């Protein structure tokens, strides 16, 4: 019989047994018949044969072992027994499975996010040879810049030729495109300009048609071709191969201060292969356009929007590459120092020229999303791992308690000759069953939770795509976690079970109970320690978020909705300006609207900064945030006016208004105690030097809630921008009325998005909210698990000590003393755990420090919150067992047994 058939026999063991029975039955019957034929009465014959045959059961067992793989057979039987035992203790099992699957799921979810965003290399040829260039910015909020202008890119590419093949990929943008079908509806596509050799250098191949080539780079503006991503092709065109050759219109967009979008008609020439979704994990590109079709940028050293990526040649070293690139970078900066450094001090000019150039690995693709969330994800992963340890300890304790309850069963099995190996196997099988179920549930949980987290990272303007596939890496991760959990937390109960001394255990059911509760105690101490770490770190993050969320931004955000308004087709500047005024007028007359204004940027954005210098002051040039707004902006946002006036209708109607409003920080920085209103300064916008006059000073507002207010220059807005509408009513009726009014004011315009201002603020606090929410959740889970563990060990030890307590009470001990002895036990365990946890938490706090806002690990609250909640949970967990101990009736306790 082959190994395979024995394996099959294990599965159909009952059939094998039936066959064996049949065979033996026949033998017995035949022998009886033979005896009867010799003249013996049948019943005597039967008796004789059965006696002679011996134990049929044992016979069957012996033959059975030949027919089945004995180890596998015993395993299957253990699994059956295990399932029966687990079902019998449904509550205990359920608790173990729920806590483990939650923890395993959290770990898995964290892993799949980390894998997708941080670990997984780009799906291109030899990603480990890819590099990308960055340089330091000396701005702590954004320490490294990786945008380069076209002339600088060309200079670097030529310098490094032969050592590394550099190519340029622009930062993704989201212009609107119209494909001519579906009623000419506009859709926003994530678009990148790439130099023609990009696909070739990456090793990406087309799924349909062709990809971009260096021939598409030849003449600026002369190559209206496009490549779409496979995902977009499937999503939008259902994979129709007729897409190749199709024309579409790309909107012409004119952002304030940079009229750089070429727009116009483009023809699709191909679809990229499915796995390639752009070089930036987190942001999937829909559309690639030739670099030559970004005319505003070609040859323009002032417009930096390209990432420079490269493939290092086999024989080139990174040091060589760095040194040639550094030389080219420095000489380029030296040539352009005049243009960039106007009005800068000699020291800052020197720093500008001497800026180092970093060569970074681009194996995983450059990703701002990763920069923003990498640390947070690792912290969450660490917290999830701690919760897994807590849950695992809980499971170990549950099993330990059960082992104790099954001591008689175990002793019986040992005394009739079961090997200790079999007992260990039995216990390990049970914990593996729990781990296996938890593993499957955890995968399901992670499958829901991880995309939910990605959903939280995304906003309407900035969809985030992460490839959270279930691949062998993920399954291997969960599998090994489950195995590890089983081994670590199943082994203690298993060894415990195997070490029963049959004689003592069978003689007295309760001998050695004290030591057994002692075995559980270290697990509880560990749980307390881990849960304190989670509570402490979670508490810091929650406190930090609470502080940040309660920061006064300097304006009133509630009751303001933002309307994004865009022209349907190209309109000239005059019409833009007229539309602005008309839309403002119409919106103001809508009933329920309290105030209306428009601003180029949302208050919390800070996309445009300019260096300004005020003549007649000794100050260096300072960087000011530029904020084009309409009259009524300060009223709409409820920003107090401190001095002078704000804009009037005349300031935006007049072509050459010179009025500007500054914020308090700007005024203080330049003028100190002197009055700012009435002062003149030179502004240099779009290469026209203009004399501006400060007409008013308003209170500070924050552009970033984490930072102090920045010096801000408000200038009159002349194009449409984002409309800010203050209203007490945010009903759908009013919103659709607003949309209609915009369209009625000028049919060429329509509302593309309606967002409450508060949602924009939420978006800026995304990382903190995410961390606070998830770590807070895990802190609560950990706390509950630790409390359950403590409760379990306490109530178990009270049950075990019932007799002892009874004796003490009978001998005149006070109830209080009994309770104290139980609680002291718990208290010591908790204190040991808490001390360890606090030390661990304070050590780990250094890793979250960078993410904290105005919260210190050694603050009163930071320490009081976790310790306090742990003590409360501990007290709650101790109440019931303590009461039970106090209510022990000596008579009952002593008569028992």
């Amino acid at each position, binding site marked *: *019989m082959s190994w395979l058939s024995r394996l099959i026999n294990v599965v159909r063991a009952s059939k094998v047994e039936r066959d064996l029975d049949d065979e033996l039955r026949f033998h017995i019957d035949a022998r009886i018949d033979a005896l009867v034929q010799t003249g013996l009465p049948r019943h005597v014959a039967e008796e004789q044969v059965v006696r002679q045959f011996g134990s049929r059961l044992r016979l069957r067992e012996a033959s059975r072992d030949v027919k089945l793989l004995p180890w596998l057979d015993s395993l299957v039987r253990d699994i059956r027994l295990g399932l029966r035992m687990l079902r019998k203790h449904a509550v205990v099992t359920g608790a173990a499975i729920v806590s483990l699957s939650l923890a395993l799921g959290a770990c898995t979810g964290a892993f799949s996010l980390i894998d997708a965003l941080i670990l997984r290399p780009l799906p291109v040829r030899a990603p480990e040879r890819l590099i990308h260039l960055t340089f330091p910015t000396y701005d702590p909020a954004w320490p490294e810049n990786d945008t380069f202008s076209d002339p600088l890119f060309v200079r670097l590419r030529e310098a490094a030729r032969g050592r590394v093949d550099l190519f340029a990929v622009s930062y993704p943008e989201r212009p609107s495109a119209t494909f001519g079908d579906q009623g000419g509806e506009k859709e926003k596509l994530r678009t990148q300009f790439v130099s023609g050799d990009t696909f070739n250098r990456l090793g990406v191949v087309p799924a349909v048609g062709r990809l971009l080539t260096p021939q598409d780079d030849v003449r600026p503006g002369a190559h209206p071709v496009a490549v779409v991503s496979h995902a977009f092709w499937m999503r939008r065109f259902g994979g129709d191969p007729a897409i190749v050759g199709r024309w579409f219109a790309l909107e012409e967009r004119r952002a304030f201060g940079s009229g750089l979008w070429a727009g116009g008609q483009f023809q699709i020439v191909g679809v990229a292969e499915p796995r390639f979704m752009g070089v930036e994990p987190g942001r999937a590109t829909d559309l690639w356009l030739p670099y030559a079709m970004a005319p505003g940028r070609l040859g323009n050293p002032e417009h930096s929007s390209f990432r420079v990526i490269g493939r290092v040649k086999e024989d080139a070293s990174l040091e060589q590459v760095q040194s040639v690139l550094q030389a080219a970078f420095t000489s380029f900066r030296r040539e352009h120092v005049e243009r960039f450094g106007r009005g800068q001090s000699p020291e800052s000019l020197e720093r500008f020229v001497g800026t180092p150039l970093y060569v970074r690995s681009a194996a995983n693709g450059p990703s701002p999303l990763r920069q923003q969330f990498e640390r947070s994800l690792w912290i969450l992963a660490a917290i999830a791992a701690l919760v897994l340890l807590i849950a695992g300890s809980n499971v170990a304790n549950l099993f330990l308690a059960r082992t104790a309850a099954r001591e008689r069963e175990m002793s019986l099995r040992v005394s009739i000759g079961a090997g200790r190996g079999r007992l260990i196997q039995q216990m390990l099988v049970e914990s593996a069953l729990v781990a296996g179920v938890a593993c499957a549930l955890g995968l399901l949980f992670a499958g829901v939770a991880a995309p939910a987290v990605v959903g939280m990272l995304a906003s309407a303007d900035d969809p985030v795509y992460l490839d959270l596939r279930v691949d062998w890496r993920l399954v291997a991760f969960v599998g090994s976690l489950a195995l590890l959990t089983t081994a670590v937390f199943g082994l203690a109960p298993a060894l415990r079970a195997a070490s029963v001394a049959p004689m003592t255990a069978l003689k007295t059911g309760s001998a050695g109970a004290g030591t057994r509760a002692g075995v559980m105690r270290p697990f509880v101490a560990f749980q307390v320690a881990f849960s304190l770490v989670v509570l402490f770190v979670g508490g810091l993050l929650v406190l930090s978020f609470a502080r940040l969320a309660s920061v006064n931004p300097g304006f009133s955000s509630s009751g303001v909705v933002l309307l994004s308004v865009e022209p349907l087709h190209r309109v000239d500047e005059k019409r833009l300006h007229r539309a602005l005024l008309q839309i403002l007028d119409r919106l103001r007359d809508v009933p329920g609207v309290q105030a209306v204004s428009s601003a180029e940027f949302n208050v919390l954005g800070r996309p445009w900064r300019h260096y300004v210098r005020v003549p007649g002051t000794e100050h260096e040039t300072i960087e000011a945030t530029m904020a084009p707004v309409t009259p009524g902006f300060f009223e709409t946002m409820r920003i107090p006016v401190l001095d002078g006036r704000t804009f009037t209708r005349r300031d935006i109607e007049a072509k050459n208004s010179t009025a500007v409003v500054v914020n308090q920080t700007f005024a203080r920085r330049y003028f100190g105690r002197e009055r700012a209103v009435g002062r003149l300064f030179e502004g240099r916008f779009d290469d026209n030097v203009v004399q501006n006059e400060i007409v008013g000073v308003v209170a500070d507002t924050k552009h970033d809630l984490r930072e102090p207010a920045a010096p801000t220059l408000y200038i009159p807005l002349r194009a449409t921008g984002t409309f800010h509408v203050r209203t007490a009513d945010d009903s759908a009726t009013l919103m659709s009325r607003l949309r209609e009014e915009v369209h009625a004011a000028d049919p060429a315009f329509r509302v593309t998005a309606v967002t409450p201002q508060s949602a924009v603020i939420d978006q800026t606090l995304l990382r903190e909210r995410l961390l606070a929410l998830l770590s807070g959740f895990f802190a609560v889970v950990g706390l509950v698990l630790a409390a359950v563990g403590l409760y379990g060990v306490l109530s178990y030890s009270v049950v075990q000590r019932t007799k002892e307590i009874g004796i003490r009470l009978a001998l005149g001990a006070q109830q209080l003393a009994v309770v104290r002895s139980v609680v002291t036990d718990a208290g010591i365990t908790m204190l040991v755990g808490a001390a360890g946890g606090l030390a661990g938490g304070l050590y780990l706090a250094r890793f979250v420090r960078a993410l904290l806002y105005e919260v210190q690990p050694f603050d009163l609250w930071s320490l009081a919150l976790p310790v306090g909640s742990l003590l409360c949970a501990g007290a709650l967990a101790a109440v019931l067992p303590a009461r039970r101990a106090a209510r022990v009736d000596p008579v009952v306790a002593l008569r028992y047994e």
Partner: protein
Amino acid sequence: MMKRHDSLQGALPLLVLKILLRRGPLHGYGITLHIETMSDEVLRVEEGSLYPALHRMEEAGWIKARWAVSEHKRRVRMYEVTAAGRRQLEAEEGRWHAVTGAVAHVLKHA
């Protein structure tokens, strides 16, 4: 599990193979009957040894089994020798003769 030793321990497979080879397919009971009658009731086959031995031999590939129906319409399991069993029998038989011959020699001349 305790191993039970009986007088036929080593010789049982040999006898079974020989009988099956000579008499053709037989069921377990038939094998015991043959051994007993042919040895003039000197050798008694313990059922406790026979079936595990049969199943071990089946496992080793020396014999193969199939289900058949007896003259009394009972389901019976019939065993027969395989090619491997034949080779095994030759080897075992040679060894057996050598050993018993040696033992007899010692008994006679000691």
